[in-house]
């Protein structure tokens, strides 16, 4: 399949460019856009962006691999990120993580066979006051307990 921005995404990309002095400076927001558009940043996506933005493909990989927010593997329909930094760890994030691995049958970095869930551990989500925190796709779920989590997951289609 040919990797290419939809017309709408292309327009968004052009809008992003307006905000920066040079194309290279627009790389991070463009990568976020690409992740929204394609789900994850594959080699083909990097090659496409390299041509589109006139940035060496190596430099794109350098950037993508530096930030954990960019997915270099496909994720599930629901991408679950469990915070495992100090505050959350003190408030029981390990328990949350272990609960998820046994419930979903996958480890961090894996996707369920039906493609519905993927699981990763991440560093501080910046919401320590409501620890432990889990992020599912774009939403935060705060003050998590295994029971609350079960309810949330059950409601997801």
């Amino acid at each position, binding site marked *: 399949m040919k990797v290419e921005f939809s017309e709408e995404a292309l327009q968004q990309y052009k809008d992003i460019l307006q905000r920066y002095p040079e194309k290279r400076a627009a790389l991070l927001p463009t990568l976020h856009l690409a992740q929204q558009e394609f789900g994850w940043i594959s080699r083909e996506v990097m090659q496409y962006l390299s041509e589109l933005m006139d940035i060496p493909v190596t430099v794109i990989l*350098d950037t993508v691999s530096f930030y954990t927010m960019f997915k270099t593997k496909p994720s599930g329909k629901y991408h679950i990120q469990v915070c495992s930094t100090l505050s959350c760890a003190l408030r029981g994030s390990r328990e949350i993580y272990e609960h998820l691995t046994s419930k979903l049958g996958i480890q961090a970095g894996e996707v369920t066979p039906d493609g519905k869930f993927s699981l990763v551990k991440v560093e501080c989500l910046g919401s320590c006051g409501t620890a432990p925190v889990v992020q599912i796709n774009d939403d935060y779920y705060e003050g998590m307990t295994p029971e609350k989590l079960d309810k949330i997951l059950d409601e997801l289609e």
Partner: protein
Amino acid sequence: MPLVKIDGKDLEVAAGTTIFEAAKQLGIEIPHYCYHPALKIVASCRMCLVKVEGFPKLVPSCSTTIGELPPERKVDGKYDMVVWTKDQEVKDAQESIMEFLLLNHPTDCPECDQAGECHLQDYSYQYGKGYSRFDFEKRVPRRKDLGPNVLLIATRCILCTRCVRFTREVTATNELIVRQRGYKAEIDTFPGLSLNNKLSMNVVDICPVGALVSKDFIHKPRNWRYEKTRTVCAGCSLGCNIQIEAMAEDNRIYRIKPLYNAEVNQWWMCDEGRLLYHQFEKLERLEYPRIRKNNELKRANWCEALQAVVEGLKQFSPDEIAVVGNGYATNEENYLLKKVFSEGFGVQKFVLNDKIRKEEDAVFPGFTIKGEKLPNEQGARDMLGRTTTFSDALRKAEKGAVKAIYYLGGDPNLTLSDKEISALQKVEFLVVQDIFSSPLTERAQVVLPGASVYEKDGTFTNFQGRVQRVRPAIMPPLAARPDYEILRDLGKLLNLEMPLRPKKAFDEIAGQVKGYAEMDYPLLGETGVLKGEGKKARKAQAEQETA
């Protein structure tokens, strides 16, 4: 200008000078990894930390600049900055950085090619603590085949990013990156790409540790075992300054590395030039003088061979003889060629070999590889004066106007067309002074085995007109001799006054050839002298001596 005091020594520097550079001017060495004078400053390794009075913490000397302070803020009423590079606090920091850089290092010096010229070894010895407190399993990133000439032994990498910056700033080929970050960071390239630009092996030189390895040098004998010779690369008309590392026992070259020359190659050289010695190793070298008898080239001694040359050439009038000089031969050799044949045989006009390899210059932002694949075309022209071309001489041979040829060779790239080879058939007397068997030697009456560029003493003049010293690193094989000596002895046989050594011949060149006035070997020094600037260089030298 700001006044700085470093370790108690005063120095005035231009505003904007880094502490590192200022210290260097004072002869104070500050250990460093990520800093390289050719590359942008990233200040990431922290090896170069120093203490600055009035600053709350240690600062990296490679990136901290010295500026002018207002009078009321000067330290001790006069200094714009006071720096300590050997303070206990600095020493503690250096020790910690070394320990940190070595956390996951395999300390595999016994099998590492860098050992003996490694900054990790040297700095561990000078600044390290001698042992590690790291008690955990070491991280073992996999080694990577980065490209045709370079291997990455990732366990040894300290992530200084010199190699990455080289591919971004000097070559702009962008092959290398830092992949991942923090604990997981590694040097890598994009899947499917490889480090295969024409300057790729320079990253091996600038890698301060043994992480980037030259495939040509891996597992060769230890670097301290070689004889090291400063000379000039013969691969193109740029004339990069190089160090040849060879062993006397087996008369072989093991490695070639660039030497810094600000005016010519800076820190770099191309891969082709670096590996050029293999091209010479592959040639079927001429090892003995030979004379044709009954249509067969028979081994002879040097007296017989030179005698045969003189007797053979005497049969022809000067304008029937084509004497071919070569941009692969030194200035001194081309000069002697002209001297012997003009004084000994009355030849007026000389021929320059134009059957040379020529391509487009390869241009990178920080380096240009020249397209003329020979080192001394400029010098050969200067020595021989007005010349005709070898192609032209071959055409004349075809028509019978040229009956004898004396060919001075040395160029491993020589290729002749079938037509040119058949023209040689018509030449009655062909003398080939060269290094390898070729269609020329097959048709020669006399073959004189000469020396390769790595085996001779003299000078080359590069495309800029810079005259640089060439020195022998190894010996020619068996009975082969440096071309200078062959021509000198030929001249002696003709009862001509001949300069004994290339150095002497160069003095004659300085007296006769335009542009070379006032030059001699000591003046050429390490960096060479531009044509027409002999006088200026001599003056500068005299000034330096009095200072």
